[in-house]
Each structure stands twice: as C-alpha cells, then as structure tokens.
C-alpha cells in the first residue's frame, strides 16, 4: 500500500527504492510503531509513516476543521469571544500561555463560535480542542 512520510510537518510520498543511494551503515535507525527515527550525517530525524487512506482522510478533516486546537500544553489567560460571535479566519479568539510565552489562538475559518471548552485559568494538553465553531447562521 502506498503512503506518505511526514518529516518536520511536511508530507513526502513514500517510495520503496531499489537503487542503493545510501549504504545502510551510514545511518542508525530505530523504529517505534509508525515512527521511524534515523540518525544521518550527525542529525536525528523523525519520519512518521502514514498510509494513503489515513493521510487523505486526515487531510480532508483538516481542510474543513471547525476547531481551534492547542499547539502546546498551557493555560488559558484570556477569552476574546463569546458563544454565538461571528468571527473571520485569523481573528484572535483566545490567548494562552505556556512556557512563559503568551500565544494568540486564531479562528480557523469565517464562522460562528459554537462552544468554548476552557475558561480563564484552566490548563489543557497539546492538541486539546479549545473552541468549536459552526458554519451556521448567526
């Protein structure tokens, strides 16, 4: 089955090459599930294998994503919107703090705030859904 390797957030088509462009002993390789770690030329890399079906399913979901997710673990310091507010893609909806850094969370699309999952002072993990939006009318 064909698929992709995700390297540093970028997707590359996975090709099983028959040519030997590299000697195996040039690199150290370690595998954990679909994560393949490679030490090459003094640098460690993580490749995440993703088969084509899962990759395109995930991508489709991302395109129509109606949530704002946490880029890192942290705490909510300010909520700039209320349920029912109409927002434009890129509008600041939330300020979060993690590792002493304040980060603005933006609306992913032109939409309406449907649910705010955290209040000021609450903590969350990486990738937690912070706000859910809807595309419905006002």
């Amino acid at each position, binding site marked *: 089955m064909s698929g992709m390797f995700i390297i540093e957030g970028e997707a590359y088509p996975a090709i099983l090459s028959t040519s030997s462009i590299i000697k195996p002993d040039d690199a150290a390789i370690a595998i954990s599930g679909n994560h393949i770690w490679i030490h*090459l030329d003094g640098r460690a890399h993580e490749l995440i294998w993703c088969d084509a079906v899962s990759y395109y399913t995930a991508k489709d979901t991302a395109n129509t994503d109606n949530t704002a997710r946490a880029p890192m673990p942290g705490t909510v310091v300010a909520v700039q919107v209320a349920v029912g507010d109409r927002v434009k893609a890129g509008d600041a909806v939330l300020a979060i703090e993690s590792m002493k850094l304040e980060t603005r969370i933006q609306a992913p699309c032109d939409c309406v705030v449907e649910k705010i999952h955290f209040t000021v002072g609450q903590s969350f993990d990486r990738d937690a859904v912070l706000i859910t939006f809807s595309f419905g009318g006002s």
Partner: protein
Amino acid sequence: MSRYPFESVLVANRGEIAARILRSVKESGLRGVIIAHPDDAHGPAMSLADEVSWIDGQTPVAAFLDIDQIINAAKVTEAGALHPGYGFLAENARFATAVEKAGIVFIGPRPSSIELMGDKIRARNFVAQLGIPVAPSVIEDDDPGTFVDRARELGVPLLIKPSAGGGGKGMHIVRNLRYLDAEIERARSEGQRYFGDGRLYAERYIECPRHIEVQVLGDESGNVVHLFERDCSLQRRFQKVIEEAPAPGLPANIRDRICNAAVDIARAAQYVNAGTVEFIYGAGQFYFLEMNTRLQVEHPVTEATTGIDLVAEQIRIAAGEPLSFEQNDVTISGHAIELRIYAEDSSHDFAPTTGPILRLQPPNDSRFDAGVIEGGRVTTAFDPMIGKLIVHGESRAAALIKAEDALRRLIVLGLRTNVGYLRRLLTDREVAAGRIHTGLIQEKFQLTAEPPLERETVARLIALAAPHVPDLCREAAAVPALHRAMGSWRN
C-alpha cells in the same frame, strides 16, 4: 575492610548523578547502595549498585524528598555514609542534621553551612562583611517610603525585580532614570498579576554578564583550596546548558581575585567538603551571587582540567581525612566543555519533550554521564536530562572541535532532543570566539529553529525508512535483494 570509617555509601539520588557517584564509591573500595522508585526502575545507576532500596511516595519526586524514608533505607541497608547528590535534599540542612543524628556520615558540608548559604540575604550579608563585592541592591521592604530614592541613588543600569518573583517575570531594566517611575509601576503591576505581590527590589544591572563559579574543597582540619573556575554563561530559561573550564578570556588577575574570594568565603564559613561559589562578572567587575553547598551538575569540567575525582575527594573528606594536596599542587591542563543533553524542543522555546529512548549510543572517546539507558524513557516525572557529554582538548579551540564532533556522533533516537541546537550554538561566531554572556541564547533565538531539510537529505531518509514499513515491503515483496539488505540493519 574499608580504609574509611564506613564500608558502604547510600546514594540518595537518581539518574546520571547517582551513577556517577556510585562509580567513585566503588573505586574507593566501598559498597554502593541506591534508593529507587518503582516508576524509575531502569535508571543508569541500578546496574552499578550492590543493593537497591525501594522507596515510594505520592509522586516519584516526593519519594526522593521523604527524609524519614531515606534515612530508614540507609539504616536497613546498613549504609555507613550517605551522598545526597544534587537537587532533592542535597541543600536541606534539616536532612543533613537528621542523617548525622542517625549515626550516618553525611557526605557534604555541615548543616550550619547549608543553612548559612541557603538564606540568600544572610549569605549576601556574610560575604559583604568579608569585603567581597556583592551586587549593590535596595529592598523596598526595608523602607517602602524611600524605595524610589534609594533605587535612584544606586544609579543606572538598574534591574527592577518583584520580590516574590522568579523565572524572569516582571523584571525590568532601567537605563535612564527618567523612566524609573514608569518601570517601577510596570514591574509592580506585573508582580501583582503574576505572584499576587507587588513588592519590589532594585539591583545594579550588569550588561551582558557572565556566570563564573569557583569549585572549592575544605577538610575537617580547616584546609580550603579552590580548583579554579568554570564559566556557565550559556543558559536558557535561567538553566545552564553548556559549561566550560577555564573561563574563556578571563584576565589572569581577575581569575586570581575571584578564586581567592571563593576560598576566603569558604574559609570564613568554616566550610567542609565540596562547594561552589557563584559570581556574576561583567565590565571588569565581579559580584558574589550565591554559594551552592553541594556537588554541581557541571563538576566534570573541573575533573577534566584538574584530574581530580571530586566525588572521591568528597568521600575522603567525609571520612575525616585531610586534603591530600595543597593549593599549589592544583594545576589545570587544557580546556573542558560539558554539554547538557536534554529532551526538549529548541524550536518551541525549549519546551521539555518525553518519549522512549529507542537508541542511545555515545561516542566512545568522550565522557558521557548518562541519565537514562537505551530502552528506557524520558517521562514528566523527573527532569528531562538525557545525559552530559564532556570533552577535553588542549585548547578551547580544540575542545570546541571535539565537542562538535562528539555531538555529531552521539546517537539519541526516539524523542526530540537539543543535540542539533547545541551543535548550532557551538558553531556560532560569538560562542566560538568566547564572547559569551547569560543573555546570549535569548539574543540568538534564530539558532533555535531547525534548518530546513535539503531535498537530497529527504530522498536519503525516505530510501532508508521505506524498507522498514511493512505495508510498503509487502507491495514490493518481489525484490529479494532489498530484504537481504534489511537483514543487516539494526532496529
């Protein structure tokens, strides 16, 4: 029979420092005992210890802070002495006292020294009385009504800090007294917001300061020597990342004065065992910062340049033996650099990372004090240190080349680490030239980003990875040569 009044040492610590202490315990002909928490059962010290005593607590860290439980472990295992390592209870005077009361030798300073240096204001006053410079400062609480005037008298540049502060929050540098009032108000409101406490203090700010510290050793007979200085100016989030000895470009007369000041402080404090006196140095001036009454994380750079095993000396001193050398016997050769290898993501403000250690292979020609073992894990339970890589060269330039080369050959796979960042930092022009200061890492934030991958590298990575994906291999099962090649690859 041991040549010391005790035959076994309990190491009340974990990770790399527990393993490092156990090595010297064994080399000193003593039995080594380690305490361990079940969640941390695969540390690097486990295989080095003659006996393991299990401890428990609400969290793994709580277990390592449980004085009664640790002293009980020492009694049960019949340990005659205890080494606290660093962190946890290492600088807790109550712990040192309890250890001694239990009839166990504490491998560290007297409880009274820990107490004196643990109170930062008391330590500062003690040092100032000796005529050794401390950074001029004024404390609002001393007389709130005159705080602004007293701060004005200190002169610029000034650093305004919340009294309850920490972590750099609410700190403001004032370079022109015109802005003093405004900056005091800003610092106060931030102190109030972050710590619920608006009280402030002001301190003379040293531009581009360097962190220079001196290793001292004192014995029961009152002999005190220094083992020269270390430079620990390369810090992120107020934590040291790279340490070296000697301090690059430090004028000889300043080195003498700093090292002598450290000995004077230790002697006046009747200091016994290993300690470190920390100074801030800038614009030709140095100021006492604090004294750490324990073995430091970065002690290996001193060991590399002086050839003295600091833990072995600590054990000898605790056994009541006098120092086996005098000040004039201590000489330094070459230059040593320690690189702290952390599980962290430099491109996300050095946020700690966690994950499995699928592969850990240090270069075989450098010292590597490992904090984890291959097959282990870095978790959120303890600090994210993977290990310390220490290199030694004839000169700083030679040591830098060795460090870069050793980092290239250090293989850590399974989680994000700071290895790539350390390589970029080492090859920075200012760092290479020794023009380092405590704000350098923050100034050079552009070094934190991973450089983009070259197309050729991506192609090589994919070629290497693809044979390890079963889905892809099934598809190409008709290519036997490939499977032959795979057979020689290690997972």
